[in-house]
């Protein structure tokens, strides 16, 4: 019978933690670099966070006359206007800067419709007023922070504080690196980007918890093993799972990049990037961080483990 292919051989022994000088530098770059990127080239803020009007149209003629549309819309005196092709030659995305008041915001769309006439089909219109955009920034930031705190508390409660701090620190790494992706590719940063970031946080943690779980188990099992060796052992033991899980989620989401359409492209790209990133940070950031944080094994022998867990530990020892 077909047994399946073991992609990662069971006796794999890679000295992951041994690379730590190199990976620390890489991780630091992935954490700090994006901040520099955001500071220098900035984020391509979508209308969700900036306010403004977004209109997606489809013209009868293909390709669309971008120049004509640009001159018609630019002459309306609505401030900064961006025109770009969107997915298909006859699909055009028009972005108009935020107007001073909600009323003018509403009027801007009427003006555009008048200028472009009847020949175009309005596929999507989004108007975000100045009130809402401010709130969306606040609630988006709050959501990321609340999620982090919730995770810190849960991991602290289920494991040890070192695990919690290591988890959150590596999540910060994941978040800033993802923001860096948005900045360097100038992908539109909007509410669905926040959704992508929150999902990456949840997904990334899922992965780290599995390794932490193994570290905890091995701490009980091998009481005298040096920490570096023990971390390496735990990462290697769970390596097959780590790789397979990332491959399945990666394969599941990859088609969205090709078939998902323009509307979800940015979201899908961030998610696919996040999956690869998470794989890296689980192995090279979260686990070695425990070395620095001074994980002590006596925390476990002294900790009042539940009777069930104690039974397991005893059985394995």
């Amino acid at each position: 019978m077909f047994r399946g292919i073991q992609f990662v051989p069971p006796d794999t022994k890679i000295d992951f933690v041994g690379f730590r000088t190199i990976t620390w530098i890489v991780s630091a770059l992935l954490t700090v670099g994006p901040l520099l990127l955001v500071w220098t080239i900035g984020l391509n803020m979508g209308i969700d966070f900036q306010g403004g009007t977004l209109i997606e149209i489809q013209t009868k003629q293909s390709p669309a006359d971008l120049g004509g549309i640009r001159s018609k819309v630019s002459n309306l005196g609505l401030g900064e206007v961006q025109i770009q092709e969107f997915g298909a030659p006859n699909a055009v995305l028009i972005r108009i800067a935020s107007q001073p008041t909600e009323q003018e915001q509403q009027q801007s769309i009427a003006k555009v419709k008048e200028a472009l006439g009847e020949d175009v089909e309005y596929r999507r219109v989004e108007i975000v007023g100045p009130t809402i955009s401010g709130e969306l920034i606040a609630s988006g930031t709050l959501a990321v922070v609340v999620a982090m705190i919730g995770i810190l508390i849960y991991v602290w409660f289920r494991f040890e504080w070192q695990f919690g701090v290591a988890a959150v620190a590596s999540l910060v790494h994941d978040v800033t690196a993802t923001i860096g992706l948005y900045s360097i590719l100038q992908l539109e940063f909007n509410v669905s980007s926040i959704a992508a970031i929150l999902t990456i946080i949840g997904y990334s943690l899922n992965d780290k918890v599995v390794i932490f779980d193994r570290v905890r188990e091995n701490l009980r099992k091998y009481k005298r093993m040096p920490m570096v060796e023990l971390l390496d052992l735990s990462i290697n033991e769970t390596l097959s799972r780590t790789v397979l899980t990332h491959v399945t989620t990666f394969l599941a989401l990859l088609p969205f990049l090709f078939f998902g359409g323009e509307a979800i492209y940015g979201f899908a790209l961030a998610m696919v990037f996040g999956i690869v990133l998470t794989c890296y940070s689980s192995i090279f950031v979260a686990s070695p961080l425990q070395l620095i944080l001074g994980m002590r094994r006596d925390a476990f022998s002294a900790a009042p483990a539940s009777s069930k867990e104690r039974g397991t530990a005893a059985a394995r020892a």
Partner: protein
Amino acid sequence: MLHFQRWKLILVATVVTLGLLYALPNLFPSSALQGVPTWLPHKQVNLGLDLQGGAHLLYQLDEKDLVEGWLNTIRGDVRETLRRGRIGYTDLAQNTATRSVSVKIREPGDMDKAFEELKKLAVPVGADVFGGFAGNDIEVERQGADSIRLTITDPGLTHRMTSAIQASIETIRRRVDAMGTTEPSIQREGRDRVLVQVPGVSDVERLKNLIGETGKLEFKLVDPAADALQVAETKQVPPGDELVYSTDDPPLPYVLKDQVLVSGQNLDDAQPGFDGQTGEPVVTFRFDAAGAKRFAKVTQENVGLPFAIVLDNKVISAPVIREPILGGTGQISGKFSVQEANDLSVLLRSGALPAKLSVIEERTVGASLGADSIESGKMAAYWGMALVVIFMFVAYGLFGLFANIAMLINVAIIFAVLSLMGATLTLPGIAGIVLVIGMAVDANVLINERIREEIRTGKSPFAAVEAGYKRALTTIIDSNVTTLIGVLVLFWMGSGPVRGFATTLTIGILASLFTAVTVTRLMVAYWLRWKRPQEIPI
């Protein structure tokens, strides 16, 4: 672990069957479900506005406008009260910034009486959260020796805001219903907002015009003494008059008497129709008893003079009163198109909004874009699913097959729960389902890896499988709970499409705990008992 009690078996089988059964209607076009008897599952997943097209409009009630309108009423009440009490006053004024009306009493001797009378205008507002008395809606206080000030209180404003939002929702519902759209959703958001979601609407501009118009109808007399053109030019409006423009293009100025003869509140009905002589579209209306009486009196007294029909401070038409209108019915003609006449009658029937509403967020998706999104979402999801199924089989053989069956059941349960809850599926929601597919098989990856490890320690097939499931369980729960934390935050902060993503992800993760752990274990257990293998093909 591998032995299942009968009742557990039945429970699992029931859940799986129900999941498949309730997911089933989603495989058919909705037209095919018309003939299905209601006792059979027939509900389909609601598609979000991004998939079926439609308008999402978030309105904010203009607090300043509400306060201004209320201060106007208070000022009128003060005037009325003092007049009734025969108390002389001057400097009756309102101030929107301080939310107050102030008045000066002429005779110092009248102060006490005036104060007592005006205090009666204050009305206690509903209890606060603790069930205690929250206070009056207006605070009446003396200002120096000869002035009285009436200020709107915070609880008063909150109370008024709440009822204004409720009234707005009622009014909007009547207006949107009149457009004949299916299943609009109109709900309060926060303190001063109304969210209107109308699926499948094509003419969004018309919808917005219909909702956003305040719809305040007033009948006023035209001041025959004033020369409108001259007043418009010099901006010197005679006392007791006001300058109002018409809806014509270009707008014509009218000088109207300040006093409202009859207002839209007295309307009983309004219907679109055609003028008997000219055949042009008109709106016919009927007053209630009080309105009819007042209208009869006014028209009797002003035969031969023009009066103006004013909607939201714009003159629609200004006909001359040819004869007293005693029946309480009339018609408004204003060079309308058929649709305009229809919309105006809807506006009048639905009543006025308590204050101005402005759109602060609008997201509209055309039906064609929605259909395209469904197509691309489906395409991507099928591919994603196919890749995962192939990969799992390649990685784990038979056990991968078990995981795949469980994953498909998981997807069915997601659809079943979405259909039953009446939850909404959005494009990001489809991505959520696909992500769940990846994460659901993750539980099986964990289990299968554990089983491999246990086999390497030399355990028998039964023992290895049993230990694999047992050991993996805590890890699976820990990892899923942490994911859920992120997702629940998303559900709490997100709206529309993003919330749809959080919904499918939450349902999927919870369902995966059942399918990936219990359902696969059942399959593996039966397989083990049936084949009694010497070794596990994993």
